[in-house]
């Protein structure tokens, strides 16, 4: 058998003298192409029960929260992406090693070469030891020959299972054995202590012979005294004349040239003719091929390898193949494969690569059972989320696939998303990108209830103090297949007495305002909301006893248009109409703040709470907000710049005809102090955060719209509004973040100042509640997951305290 195999090998190598086929597999990458999947049970985030009203308070934190949410989304998807990356890594590794297998089946002439590749990949993944162990339990046969004799492969018995004790490679040219680290070693699927039949061994030899790496390869068995055999594979490596040029071409979508059978009876002249025509064909092939993506730097590197080596050997080609494929896979071209080396024995080495050109992109909807069905979502909605690199004619890149996955996921329309590259059967070397989407239920309604037990008289809960509360919400998503949605929710902590704290929200979202084909991304949002918040304006300064609180209830309508420039930068403008009611602790409408008299009594002649001085204000105003955010994560730490400008422009419509211009500008800079290498697991850089916030108002300023100073998002170390409430404010902050292990520690200093404008708020609440109007603080802290633990010293009283806060300050 070996003797047959050997000429066969000689034939394949000698005949295709000019063309080495390290892996003749016809790039059927079915098993090796990773598919991207994302599953999300409910990609929507629970909408907050208390919608923040539009006219945000000085530190309403609406946008901050918003952006934080966004970051969370990004983070989660990034995590998914990482997982995928790991997966794809594994796969690409497998593919590299699987080449041998692929080659083998290709060599055997079978059509289903792909499967073979896959098998060897899995067998590699599941450790060979396990297989060996499994096989060991099987019976194996002793060779039944005298010990220490060398037996040729064809002399072995076809009925016996031989146990292979060890495998040796013998380089005939060098006359030495090669170690296990040699690149040839991985081409052999035999493993020491494995049990193989003669047929398996023959197959193995055939695989090696047809790989084109060897001019001659033989397999001998040496009998051991214990009945096992030692296998020696002796080979003669193929070599060609040295080359000093390297060229890489993309032969994707081109038919594989099949060598014409050469008649052994050809005359010399015919042979010459044949070679010439072959050469011509090949030149034409090169000309027809498209340039490949391999950058010049890698090409130079390979050229260097060629020059150093002198003669072109099979090993060198293998190395070149590995290097080229490595570059492709590192850069996300998961479907790229070196399929051939051509033009050998000339001065040039031509590396033929199938890069994985996308021939088609298919969007498919699946029903719950995974059957293909007609989707409700309109195609352009999905299409506009796909990166250009995933369109027909581009080379498939797994990063683009991931991007598509993230983008589609951010639509929040699908429960399951798969981006699946699949080989194009009709077009050799082509890739069809399949996007499989499982749509979420369009309509959903939810009722969640909770019982709260309120301490009754004497601190004991009574039957009457058990309150049924909960949320009723409904959502109608993806109206008309254009991602428009209506959602509504009602929340109360006591259904029996809902007027106490009923929170409702009704929202309509209309994306693609300029048409789904228009690249301009504007979204119309209309909502109806209410909210209840404790006013930080009516807060005492240091040393002041409890100031009776004032609750600010807002209810109204809001319509705005958001134009997204980038993922983070956007411009929002719209109209807000709201009714503001100020109430005291016992929910009675109060038109003036209360204060505790030194005698202990309470007088209700504090600063007016509303503009109309009745406790109820109605107003309509325009609101615009422009956010520029180019922050990005460097090893998990935020770096960049964020600027937010917001204006509320009163229109003179409402109680007392409020006409005002209330504006605030926030500038935050995250300065990276050290250049660091980016990558998973690398240390984040130290960052200096500089922050400035100016808020001002010209015109009518009711107390609930005054800017307050102090609080976790204003000046840390103080309570909300503890420093003052003013018409114009300035906040400055600096924070230094030093990474420590997986988290960071920070030191900060902050200052807030009313710029002497406290007296310009009607009733001067700053002074009435004995606040300073300005204050500084400094402190240190550590980030523990989502929680910030910090020690802050308030400069006005000089005392420090430890705070635990959720989320980020900036």
């Amino acid at each position, binding site marked *: 058998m070996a003797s047959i195999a050997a000429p066969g090998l000689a034939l394949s190598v000698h005949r295709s003298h000019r063309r080495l086929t390290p892996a003749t597999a016809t790039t059927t990458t079915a098993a090796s192409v990773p598919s991207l999947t994302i599953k999300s049970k409910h990609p929507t985030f629970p909408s907050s029960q208390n919608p923040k009203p539009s006219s945000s308070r000085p530190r309403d934190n609406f946008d901050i929260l918003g952006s934080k949410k966004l970051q969370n989304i990004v983070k989660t998807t990034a995590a998914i992406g990482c997982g995928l990356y790991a997966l794809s890594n594994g796969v690409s590794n497998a593919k590299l090693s699987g080449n041998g297998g692929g080659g083998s089946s290709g060599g055997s002439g079978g059509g289903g070469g792909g499967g073979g590749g896959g098998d060897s990949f899995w067998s590699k993944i599941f450790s060979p030891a396990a297989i060996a162990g499994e096989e060991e339990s099987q019976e194996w046969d002793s060779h039944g020959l005298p010990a220490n004799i060398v037996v040729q492969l064809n002399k072995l018995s076809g009925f016996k299972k031989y146990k292979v004790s060890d495998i040796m490679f013998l380089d005939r040219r060098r006359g030495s054995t090669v170690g296990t680290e040699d690149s040839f070693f991985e081409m052999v699927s035999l493993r020491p202590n494995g049990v193989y039949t003669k047929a398996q061994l023959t197959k193995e030899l055939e695989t090696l012979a047809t790989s084109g790496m060897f001019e001659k390869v033989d397999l001998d068995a040496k009998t051991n005294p214990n009945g096992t055999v030692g296998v020696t594979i002796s080979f003669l490596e193929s070599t060609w004349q040295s080359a000093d040029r390297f060229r890489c071409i993309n032969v994707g979508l081109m038919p594989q040239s099949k060598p014409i059978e050469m008649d052994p009876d050809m005359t010399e002249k015919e042979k010459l003719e044949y070679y010439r025509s072959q050469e011509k064909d090949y030149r034409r092939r090169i000309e027809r091929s498209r340039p490949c993506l391999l950058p010049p730097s890698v090409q130079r590197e390979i050229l260097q390898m060629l020059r150093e080596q002198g003669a072109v050997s099979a090993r060198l080609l293998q190395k070149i193949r590995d290097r080229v494929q490595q570059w492709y896979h590192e850069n996300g071209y998961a479907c790229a494969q070196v399929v051939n080396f051509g033009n050998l024995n000339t001065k040039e080495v031509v590396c033929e690569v199938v890069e994985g050109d996308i021939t088609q992109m298919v969007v498919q909807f699946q029903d719950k059972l995974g059957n293909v069905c007609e989707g409700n979502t309109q195609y352009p909605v999905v299409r506009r989320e796909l990166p250009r690199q995933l369109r027909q004619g581009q080379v498939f890149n797994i990063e683009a696939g991931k991007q598509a996955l993230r983008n589609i996921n951010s639509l929040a329309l699908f429960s399951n998303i798969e981006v699946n590259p699949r080989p194009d059967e009709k077009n050799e070397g082509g890739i069809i990108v399949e996007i499989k989407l499982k749509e979420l239920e369009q309509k959903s309604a939810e009722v969640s209830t909770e019982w709260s037990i309120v301490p009754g008289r004497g601190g004991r809960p009574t039957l009457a103090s058990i309150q049924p509360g909960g949320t009723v919400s409904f959502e109608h998503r993806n109206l008309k297949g254009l991602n428009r949605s209506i959602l509504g929710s009602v929340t109360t902590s006591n259904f029996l007495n809902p007027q106490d704290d009923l929170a409702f929200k009704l929202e309509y979202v209309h994306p693609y305002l300029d048409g789904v084909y228009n690249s301009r991304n504007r979204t119309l949002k209309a909502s109806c909301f209410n909210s209840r918040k404790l006013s930080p304006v009516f807060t005492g300064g240091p040393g002041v006893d409890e100031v009776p609180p004032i609750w600010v209830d807002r209810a109204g309508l809001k319509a705005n248009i958001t134009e997204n*420039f*980038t993922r983070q930068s956007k411009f929002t403008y719209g109209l807000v109409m709201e009714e503001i009611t100020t109430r005291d602790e016992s929910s009675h409408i109060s038109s003036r703040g209360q204060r505790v*008299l030194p005698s202990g009594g309470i007088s209700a002649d504090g600063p007016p709470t509303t503009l109309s001085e009745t406790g109820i204000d109605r107003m309509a105003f325009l609101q615009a907000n422009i956010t520029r955010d180019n922050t990005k994560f460097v090893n998990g730490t935020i770096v960049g710049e964020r600027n937010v*400008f917001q204006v509320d422009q009163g229109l003179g419509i409402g109680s007392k005809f409020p006409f005002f211009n209330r504006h605030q500008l926030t500038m935050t800079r995250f300065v990276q102090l050290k250049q660091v290498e980016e990558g998973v697991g690398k240390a984040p850089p130290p960052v200096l955060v500089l922050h400035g916030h100016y808020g001002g108002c*010209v*015109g009518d300023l009711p107390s609930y719209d005054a800017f307050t100073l102090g609080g976790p998002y204003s000046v840390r170390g103080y309570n909300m509004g503890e420093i003052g409430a003013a018409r114009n404010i300035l906040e400055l902050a600096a924070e230094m973040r030093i990474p420590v292990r997986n988290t960071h520690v920070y030191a900060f200093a902050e200052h807030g100042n009313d710029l002497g404008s406290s007296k*310009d708020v009607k009733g001067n609440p700053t002074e009435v509640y004995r606040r300073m109007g300005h204050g500084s603080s400094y402190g240190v802290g550590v980030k523990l997951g989502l929680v910030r633990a910090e020690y802050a010293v308030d400069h006005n009283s000089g005392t420090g305290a430890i705070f635990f806060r959720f989320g980020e300050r900036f």
Partner: protein
Amino acid sequence: MASQLIREWAGIQQFPAATQSKLLELLGKLKQENVCTLTILVMGKGGVGKSSTVNSIIGERAVAVSAFQSETPRPVMVSRSRAGFTLNIIDTPGLVEGGYVNDQALDLIKKFLLNKTIDVLLYVDRLDAYRVDNLDKQIVKAITESFGKEIWRRGIVVLSHAQLSPPDGLTYDEFTSRRSEALLKIVRMGARIRKQEIQAAAIPVVLVENSGRCNKNESDEKILPSGTAWIPNLVQTITDVVLSGSKGILVDQKLIEGPNPNNRGKVLIPFILAFQYFFVVKRIQKWIKYDIANESSPSWA
């Protein structure tokens, strides 16, 4: 309050003849200058003798006084007329409660004074209190903030309980001058009167003694230890201040509430808005464009 009956100044009869003639002379002097009404605002801490001083000037027990507790929960105006001349004296509750300036009392006073003109402010404190502290300054400040700095041009510092024996080693004159100097300093600080202005707006100091045990001179006038009859002296000073040329303080809504900050700059709002659009929003939009242009695209793109 407006309908309050203006009674005949009968109390003037109670005064000794010397005082009476002196007072009438002064009133005549005022009438000559076309001053027919005189409104005097009396302010100060609680229990310093504001009400007693009012009673002493009027010459009758017009407002209730008590040695041990505040008898004046709200401002009271006492009006007396004599020969076509009307004297209004407004007695006010003490401005201090619990160690703080009582904003509420101040508010009451302000509301009471609405649409009245204050001709003279009597800031009353005790002579026999040895020290001045921050609280005094706060009171002066509160008064200044309520009625404006101008009121101190019409201000007189009145030191009550003037009949005392000074502490050891000091003569009566030394003590009174040092005490009044200390108080004036505080007043100047609280009212933010600058050094240059001190000369122009010197605040006179008058000593009074409301006690019934007050020493009297041969013409039965109440006199201070220094020998001056203090009622004529006080009225004399008031007259001098009134005739010094400065204007009385008209307390109107605007003075009480201060300029309405909500109206300031309202006219400018359209311009501010235009500025914001063209110079802030546009600028940020430009930055965003710059960001997009400079965005590093991934290697595969």
